[in-house]
């Protein structure tokens, strides 16, 4: 990622804050939205983007974040349905070219993909990591 992008990170929980901090460090212009402004404490000290406090489901808030100018939107709130809705809003209303959606419940992965979303099912990824690491440990011990 050489070119500087405008990236919207929606949800500033543990995952959102790591992503936003990283993007900012890489020189991208970052806006991060969360309804609880205490979550912005999770951001790293080098974070130089814009935090916006507001309900991420609300159209006004997404407009205030200038989502229409973003090249990338990443929906990483703690609620699957919220991520699914915000991602669809980003794609269809704000015409954001790249939208990534975090899904927690694997049962919602298929439907989200059917809706045309690019999903990252973090629970599934963790499970795979656990199984893989366990296998490695067993191999070392045997």
């Amino acid at each position: 990622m050489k070119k500087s992008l405008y990236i919207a990170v929606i949800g500033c929980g543990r995952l959102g804050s790591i992503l936003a901090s990283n993007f900012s460090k890489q020189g991208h212009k970052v806006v991060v939205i969360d309804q609880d402004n205490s979550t912005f404490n999770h951001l790293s000290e080098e974070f130089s983007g814009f935090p916006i406090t507001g309900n991420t489901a609300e159209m006004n808030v997404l407009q205030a974040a200038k989502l229409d100018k973003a090249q990338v939107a990443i929906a990483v709130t703690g609620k699957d349905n919220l991520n699914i809705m915000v991602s669809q809003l980003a794609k269809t209303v704000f015409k954001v070219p790249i939208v990534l959606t975090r899904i927690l419940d694997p049962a919602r992965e298929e439907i989200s993909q059917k809706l045309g979303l690019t999903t990252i099912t973090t629970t599934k990824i963790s499970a795979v990591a656990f199984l893989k690491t366990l296998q490695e440990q067993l191999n070392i011990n045997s």
Partner: protein
Amino acid sequence: MRIILIGDDNLVYFLSKKFVAEKHQVTIINCDPVTARKFSHQIKATVIIGDGTHPTILKEAEAEKADLILALTAHDEDNLVACQIAQQHYGVPRTIALVHDPAHQQFFEQMRISVAFSATQILANLIKKRADFEDITNFFAVDRGQIGVTEVILNEDSPAVEKSLQNLDLPAGALIACIIRQGQAFVPRGWSHLEVGDRLILISQPENYDQLLEVLTGKVE
């Protein structure tokens, strides 16, 4: 029809009762076990405890057989996703979603939700209408709304003030039945004049109501 309703509040309760009374087959999905138990005692419907936006719960509710789904929870995202799963996954032909942020309404319909209605918007419109026509009180409707009885108070802006009834362009299906002036009520005749502050009791058919109000208040509803 087979109807699925998702939500926990009074809206779901009253709508379900109405649908049951109309002989529809109703399934309610509730995420709160206490409400679910209450509903199952009060309404002749199948009540399922669970997240109505989850594919498994919708399957349990036999969404694939449903004709209509209404998503009426407190969260726009849950209403959208419930309708989308019902439509895309289970082929429910008609989906109705409650929208809280009025700005979402158009987006929901763009996402092919059959009807997205914003209670906020509806209430705001009603209140605005009331405020514009604060001098109008609807009393009652006779015989299932075929005839309405309304009271209008004439203010100084009314184009009808200082005119006699015979000089007003009243529509055919409408009548000024009574004038109340300074506490005295009388039945007007063609030559009766109208004054500022008159309270008029109107009887009209619904199709003539708007025209009647326009003649008396100068405002178009």
